[in-house]
């Protein structure tokens, strides 16, 4: 890319090592970033990417190694020091206060003041001006909890810009963005670099890396495994570097053989959390042996749809049957009993009980079934047997089935959820963002498992903001916009442009 | 924090709590040289030992536990006896606390509070050689080795109420009382009301009881309630209910009219000494002469003349102290007459029938 603008080395890490109880998260990792350069950090889940940048941002103290900023050796005691040194960071998990407004979030920690008061007017003006300048559209007075994730991501970036960062770290900023939003963000990022900012960019999406990065650093198991550039590499070679073996990047699947209608919904309506109509009459059918994908920008009712279908949210409908049985008004427990598996979009919050063992999480919704309990007493041996089998089958990387699930990496947590839902051999699988934040190796695996479930005759409803995922897996695709399902396209014919337009609310 | 010092015992005859400001002493043993040194050999005839078990609460509660202990100390000094106390923290320990003394061959055991009546009776049966004095414990069928020290609280209340009825200028008389589920409190309250109305049929007397939770240990409520009634025109308030009432007394004493136009009345013992902050407004206290009664019974017991059954202690009202000048002579005269009538039993206080409403 535009190599010409790249200047001096502004950030250098030498031989950084960081150990956590039982893991070496980083071992002798070195990194150089120049002004105007975008360095992409690649690596599997748990490779140590976040740890590396957290040390640079002063959140962790390295056990060994040194960090230099603009040629000077620095020792940060907190992020405050890093901010002072001109480093900004956009975090993998949003670091925003949900009940604060956008402006309040941006200025937090560096408030314009009219002592001792916060000069709120100045704050709002300043944030609005910044947003304008960098083309990051936000409503400064909206509460962060009320705005879509894409906008929250922009707030995160504004926070860093507001602090005048000339070294900007972005940890998986695109994980929750739609394709359009991602493209916008990549452009903004390029703009930063062109104006002299040094950018460290972490992502699992190889396409993005190849589009925007100047230099690519790959980590594996906490160690540097090499540096390359987009010119010298392609998706396959990068994936190989990360995982240490070759990875299938497209889903390998045969044409579907749809059977009986399993999920049959007509005229489904439901409200969102603040009482506004979120589903405006959904008509949807999913047959056994097919994958129906729902594409759409997040916040158009996907969450409510999935919750209504799984009994978690009250809804009204003209028709709502699962395998011919009436499912309207049933509890989540009843719906599960009807043979429905559900992969919730937020695995940490909704899908898992952190302090429970892997084994218990693997039976979280089946613990009281006859197989795992007799007259109300749990059969722990049966649970253990199942867990051992699933850990093996789904390649969950865990020290043991007794390990608490909160200590696993994101990808492995996701595998636990997928394993649990597929192990019950569901008639209908509802999978919401099944590969969010998961590395390429695990994505490959999860995708193959979903296809395998389809091939065993399960009806699959796939909801994803990841267009590649929807297109790659689905036999039929529907686009969700503003509480409605717009058009139905057979998987093969669906093309990105057309779907992109539909997602944005345009005509097909 | 027992309050047992030689100096205290000497002067405690009238001033129940004078000695309370004295340094704390760890062990509740009387240090006077004349008395038995310890309780290791209470069985010996020359060693006289007196034990006291408090009701839940402390021996320095400025109330009945303390008064009973003062009386015991006075008697012990006269007898050259050894004495100590145990404080009950859980009512279920009554029996055990009593038997700690009994098994050590104490000669007389004072148990304080009507809740301990049953435990006392049971212990009396188990230890027939020990004499028991049950303070505030009404005896149904007399037991040879138990004397119940009881008081007609309604009479003390009546007298105090009568005085209030004569003294009020606003014809409004208030009260801030502990909970009415404790009979002595109710007797004081109802007697007070009857007395006030008998003296002054025009008067308005309000009875306000604290909720049972923390009834005797909420001085802030006592203060706030008293203040409220003062604001509503009451000029004499009967604050009766342990620390709750004491809070009321202290609050009333803060009033600019305290001692001239506004008065307070204490309860149980002469609160001129137990709540010195209230001296300014304290007209009198509706007294049950616990100290004297306990002392007398302990002495009788040591004399081998324990009066089994009920022993009626004196009730009455405490001296006016600082407010003497504010009480006209005719009021004082009338009051003396009433006290005589009460003593003679010619005055109907409406109680104990009053307990039933």
């Amino acid at each position, binding site marked *: 890319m535009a190599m010409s603008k790249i200047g001096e080395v502004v950030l250098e890490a030498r031989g950084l090592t960081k150990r956590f*109880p*039982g893991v070496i998260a980083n071992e002798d990792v070195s990194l150089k970033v120049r002004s105007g350069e975008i360095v992409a950090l690649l690596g599997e889940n748990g490779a140590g990417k976040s740890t590396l940048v957290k040390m640079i941002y002063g959140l962790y103290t390295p056990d060994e190694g040194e960090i230099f900023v603009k040629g000077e050796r620095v020792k940060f005691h907190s992020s405050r020091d890093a901010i002072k040194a001109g480093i900004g960071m956009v975090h993998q998990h949003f670091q925003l206060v949900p009940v604060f407004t956008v402006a309040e979030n941006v200025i937090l920690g560096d408030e314009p003041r009219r002592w001792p008061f916060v000069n709120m007017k100045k704050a709002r003006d300043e944030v609005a001006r910044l947003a304008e300048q960098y083309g990051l559209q936000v409503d400064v007075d909206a509460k962060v909890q009320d705005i879509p994730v894409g906008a929250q991501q922009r707030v995160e970036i504004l926070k860093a810009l507001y602090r005048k960062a000339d070294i900007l770290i972005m940890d998986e900023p695109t994980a929750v963005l739609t394709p359009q939003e991602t493209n916008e963000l990549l452009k903004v990022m390029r703009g930063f670099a062109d104006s002299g900012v040094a950018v460290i960019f972490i992502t699992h999406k190889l396409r993005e890396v190849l589009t925007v990065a100047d230099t690519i650093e790959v980590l594996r198991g906490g160690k540097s495994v090499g540096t390359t550039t987009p010119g010298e590499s392609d998706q396959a070679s990068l994936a190989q570097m990360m995982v240490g073996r070759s990875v299938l990047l497209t889903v390998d699947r045969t044409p579907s053989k749809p059977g009986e209608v399993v999920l049959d919904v007509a005229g489904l309506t439901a409200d969102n959390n603040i009482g506004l109509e979120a589903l405006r009459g959904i008509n949807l059918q999913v047959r056994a042996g097919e994958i129906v994908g729902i594409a759409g920008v997040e916040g158009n009712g996907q969450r409510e749809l999935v919750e209504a279908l*799984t009994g*978690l949210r009250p809804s009204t409908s003209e028709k709502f049957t699962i395998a011919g049985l009436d499912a309207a008004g049933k*509890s*989540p*427990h009843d*719906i*599960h009993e009807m043979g429905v598996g559900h992969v919730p979009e937020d695995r940490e*919050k*909704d*899908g*898992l*009980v*952190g*302090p*429970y063992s892997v*084994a*218990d999480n693997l039976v*979280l*919704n089946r*613990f*009281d079934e006859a197989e795992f*309990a007799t007259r*109300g*007493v*749990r059969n*722990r*041996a049966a*649970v*253990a047997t199942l867990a051992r089998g699933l850990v093996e089958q789904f390649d969950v990387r865990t020290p043991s*089935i007794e390990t*608490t699930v909160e200590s696993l990496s994101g990808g492995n947590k996701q595998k636990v959820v997928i394993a649990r839902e597929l192990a019950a051999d569901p008639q209908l699988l509802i999978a919401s963002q099944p590969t969010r934040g998961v590395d390429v190796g695990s994505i490959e695996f999860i995708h193959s498992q979903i296809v395998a479930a389809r091939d065993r005759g399960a009806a699959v409803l796939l909801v994803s903001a990841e267009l590649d995922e929807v297109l790659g897996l689905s036999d039929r695709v529907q686009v969700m916009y503003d509480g409605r399902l717009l058009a139905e396209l057979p998987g093969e014919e669906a093309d990105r442009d057309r779907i992109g337009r539909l997602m944005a609310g345009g005509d097909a | 924090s*027992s309050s047992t010092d030689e100096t205290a015992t000497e002067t405690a005859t009238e001033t129940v709590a004078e000695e309370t400001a004295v340094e704390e002493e*760890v*062990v*509740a*043993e009387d240090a006077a040289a004349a008395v038995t040194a310890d309780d290791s050999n209470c069985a010996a005839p020359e060693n006289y030992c007196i034990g006291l078990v408090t009701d*839940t609460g402390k021996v320095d509660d400025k109330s009945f536990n303390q008064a009973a202990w003062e009386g015991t100390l006075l008697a012990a000094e006269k007898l050259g006896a050894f004495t*100590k106390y*145990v*404080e*009950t*923290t*859980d*009512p*279920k*320990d009554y029996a*055990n*606390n009593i038997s*700690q*003394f009994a098994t050590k061959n104490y000669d007389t055991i004072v148990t304080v509070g*009507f*809740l301990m009546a049953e435990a006392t009776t049971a212990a009396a049966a188990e230890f027939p050689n020990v004499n028991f004095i049950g303070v505030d414990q009404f005896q149904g069928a007399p037991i040879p080795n138990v004397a119940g020290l009881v008081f007609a609280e309604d009479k003390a209340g009546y007298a105090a109420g009568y005085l209030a009825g004569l003294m009020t200028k606003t014809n409004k008389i208030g009260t801030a009382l502990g*909970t009415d*589920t*404790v009979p002595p409190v109710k007797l004081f309250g109802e007697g007070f009301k009857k007395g006030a109305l008998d003296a002054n049929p025009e008067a308005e007397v309000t009875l306000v009881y604290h*909720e*049972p939770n923390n009834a005797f240990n909420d001085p802030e409520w006592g203060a706030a309630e008293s203040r409220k009634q003062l604001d509503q025109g009451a000029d004499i308030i009967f604050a009766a209910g342990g620390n709750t009432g004491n809070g009321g007394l202290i609050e009333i004493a803060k009033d600019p009219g305290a001692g001239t136009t506004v008065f307070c009345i204490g309860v149980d013992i002469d609160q001129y000494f137990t709540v010195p902050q209230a001296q300014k407004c304290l007209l009198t206290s509706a007294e049950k002469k616990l100290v004297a009664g306990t002392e007398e019974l302990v002495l009788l017991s040591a004399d081998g003349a324990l009066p089994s059954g009920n022993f009626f202690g004196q009730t009455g009202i405490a001296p006016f102290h600082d407010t003497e000048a504010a009480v006209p002579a005719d009021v004082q005269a009338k009051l003396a007459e009433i006290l005589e009538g009460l003593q003679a039993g010619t005055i109907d206080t409406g109680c*104990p029938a009053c307990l039933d409403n």
Partner: protein
Amino acid sequence: MSVTDPSKTDLGFSDPDPQRGGPLGRLPSIVLPIASVLIAFAVGGLLIWLQGVNPFYAYWVMFSTALGTPEGLLRVMEKSTPLILTGLAVTVGLRAGLFNIGAQGQLLAGAIGAAWAGYAFTMPLAFHIPFAMAFGMLCGAAWASIAGVLRAYRSVSEVITTIMLNSIAIALVDYLASKPFKEPDQPISRTPEIAETAALPNFGAIPTGFVLAILVALFFGWFLMRTTSGFRFNTVGLNSNAARYAGISVKRTIILAMAVSGALAGLGGAIETLGVTGRFEPAFNAGLGFDGITIALLARANPIAAIPAAILVGTLRSGAAALQFETGIEPEVVDVILALTLLFVAAPIVGRFLFRKRNIKTTRVTSGWGS
């Protein structure tokens, strides 16, 4: 075993080194509380010494009278019984993410309920005891359920409602004992004595109630670890969102947990009435519910650990009277010792000192306002 052992993971004692395996790895969970108790006693001893009394003598008096004589043992057992049960009541709530401050009110409800069932009916012993006990539990459960239902359906914090319900319960039982249930012809507010057929007998020298309380604690240890219902409690307590997604009815679980918690406190009250006091008398049950909070926290919400914790509290409270009798030290010293024990068990200081490790993970027992 495979299934999460809650005492090991979320609610165990501070474990100085989670990586360390084998029998030594579990050692600290026993060593730590014992060390904590000892240090608390040492500090308490200082207090005693400052009052001019030999602390060794003081403790010897305390323990020899509490544990060294048959009557002392009996009293310790009697005192520990309601404490085990209120400790369990608070524990069960904590496990389901509820902070039940209302064990006191629930215990009172159970105590007066059992008293009424005990005196107002005549029936054979084989029925009367279970009936009175069950009725007491029901009263406790019903009283707690008010808080449970309000929490489940109206999102009212159970912390507030149980505080308020305590005050209401105290006033209510006071009314009942002084008016409708009052024993006639005597001045004290109390119910008549329960029928002989309702009185809990002793197992030789051991009170039936004590045995019962221990069995109940063991049962709840098993219940929370091994049963499906216990699993529901734990799941709702640890992550109510995930519980909902997994098909557990959170509302139902909350109400059930609160009712069970109340029933346990109610049982504590019932045993007090049927086994110790023989009637209901308002003053006789003071403070038991609040000690339950201390015990649950000392036991780190582990039902089985509630047994030794309650016995410790019971022993100290029981020995306090002898302490004062023999040495003049005031019984409040027990509160100081308890507070210090709790401090040393919960704070990482003792562990750090004992195991010379900096990274002691302190564990959380409670979950904020249960939301």
